[in-house]
């Protein structure tokens, strides 16, 4: 492939095409395309702020080339739900007070969703393992764990996470 080409990404169910250099990371491409709910943090895979789902599995978008995920389903935190129809994880993070500055929250919700896709009834050890690549320097994680537990219950019971 030449050093630049048209890349079609499927983001939150929507197809977007952009002319991208081959070295463009998924993080850079998504933010340039307006998906600014994906946060830029450490850019080396330590902080998890840039996490997105690719075919339901969370990866760091800063460590992924945009051209490598052409044709795969990319989901950002805004693709899970919005203010009018929030996802149970989004509801639970708000209701549990799991958000302070909020910068890590998109990545944490994406990482938690990746866990729940595979493990609908997670133990605290499962949650700890799933969130080990997301740094939050405000909350101390206790409320975040509360939120993930509540969302898992809500998703299983079809009930309300609040």
């Amino acid at each position, binding site marked *: *492939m*030449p*050093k630049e080409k048209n890349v079609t990404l499927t983001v939150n169910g929507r197809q977007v095409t952009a002319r991208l*250099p*081959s*070295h463009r*990371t998924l993080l850079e491409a998504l933010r340039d395309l307006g998906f600014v709910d994906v946060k830029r943090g450490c*850019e*080396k*895979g*330590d902080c*998890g702020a840039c*996490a997105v789902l690719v075919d339901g*599995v*969370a*990866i*760091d978008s*800063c*460590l*992924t*080339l945009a*051209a*490598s995920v052409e044709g795969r389903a990319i989901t950002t935190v805004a693709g899970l739900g919005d203010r009018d129809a929030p996802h149970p994880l989004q509801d639970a993070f708000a209701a549990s007070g799991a958000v302070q500055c909020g910068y890590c929250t998109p990545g944490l919700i994406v*990482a938690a969703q*990746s*866990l729940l896709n*595979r493990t609908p009834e997670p133990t605290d050890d499962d949650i*700890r*393992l*799933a*969130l*080990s*690549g*997301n*740094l939050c320097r405000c909350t101390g994680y206790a409320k975040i764990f509360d939120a993930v537990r509540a969302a898992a219950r809500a998703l299983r019971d079809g009930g309300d996470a609040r």
Partner: protein
Amino acid sequence: MIAEFELETPDRLDAALALLAGQDAGAGAALAGGTNLIVDLRSGRESPARVVDLGGIDALRGIEVGADAITLGARATVTDLLTSPEIAAHAPALVEAARVFAGQMVRNAATVAGNIACGSPAADLVPPLMTLDAEVTLASTTGERVVPLAEYFTGYRADVRRGDELITRIRWPRLPESSVHGFHKLARRKGDAITVVGVSVALSVAGGRCSRARIALGAVAPMVVRAPKAEAMLEGVALTPALIEDAARQAVEECTPIDDIRATAAYRRHCVHVLTRRLVTAAWDRLV
């Protein structure tokens, strides 16, 4: 910002090998999980003219459990290790290493072969693979060769792989019945931390004696190393606390740690002693 390169996305192994053939060292780079390579591209530590993305090559995937051996495709991820009942049964220390490997997103992308190929002395999957006597298959357009993992590394971030070669498989013989395979990573945190000292031990017992002993040490030499003299002290005899203590002290003699930002050499030597003693003792106690 990353320097420009040509990106190739072959869907067959032979096409990937052809793209790497004739590349000078450093001119072509294989991209698997990207969790090391993209960081190195961004920092300028790597600046290949061509990057060959292996993501579309299905032949490199999967975990195969045979009658005599277990084989990992080069693109098996760290998460694949964590979620495989076969790996839990046949290489439990590999699961322990996967549990303390970076964070979820990195584990979902990072591959076993990539952890080997990065050549870091702190690579967490390497000590448990070394105590299994794992072998690495290297392929190029001119054929394949198999290299024991214990002979794969030649120095700090240096190995026997040529620029036109790819790791395609990692394979190890099943451990004998009555074996214990352990790993301990010492680091500042359980997740998202670089190893200060990593020790893996594999011990087998037959007829009341230790029939096979392997000790591999991470982050205490320019590369992950075995401790063959310590292993030899354990093999062929029934272990006693005094013998285990002597072997653990011998393991210290077989590493060459340095002072760095994470720990001093003296602390690392102390930890090799303690962790080797603990892992061998725990293994022996479970086996007899």
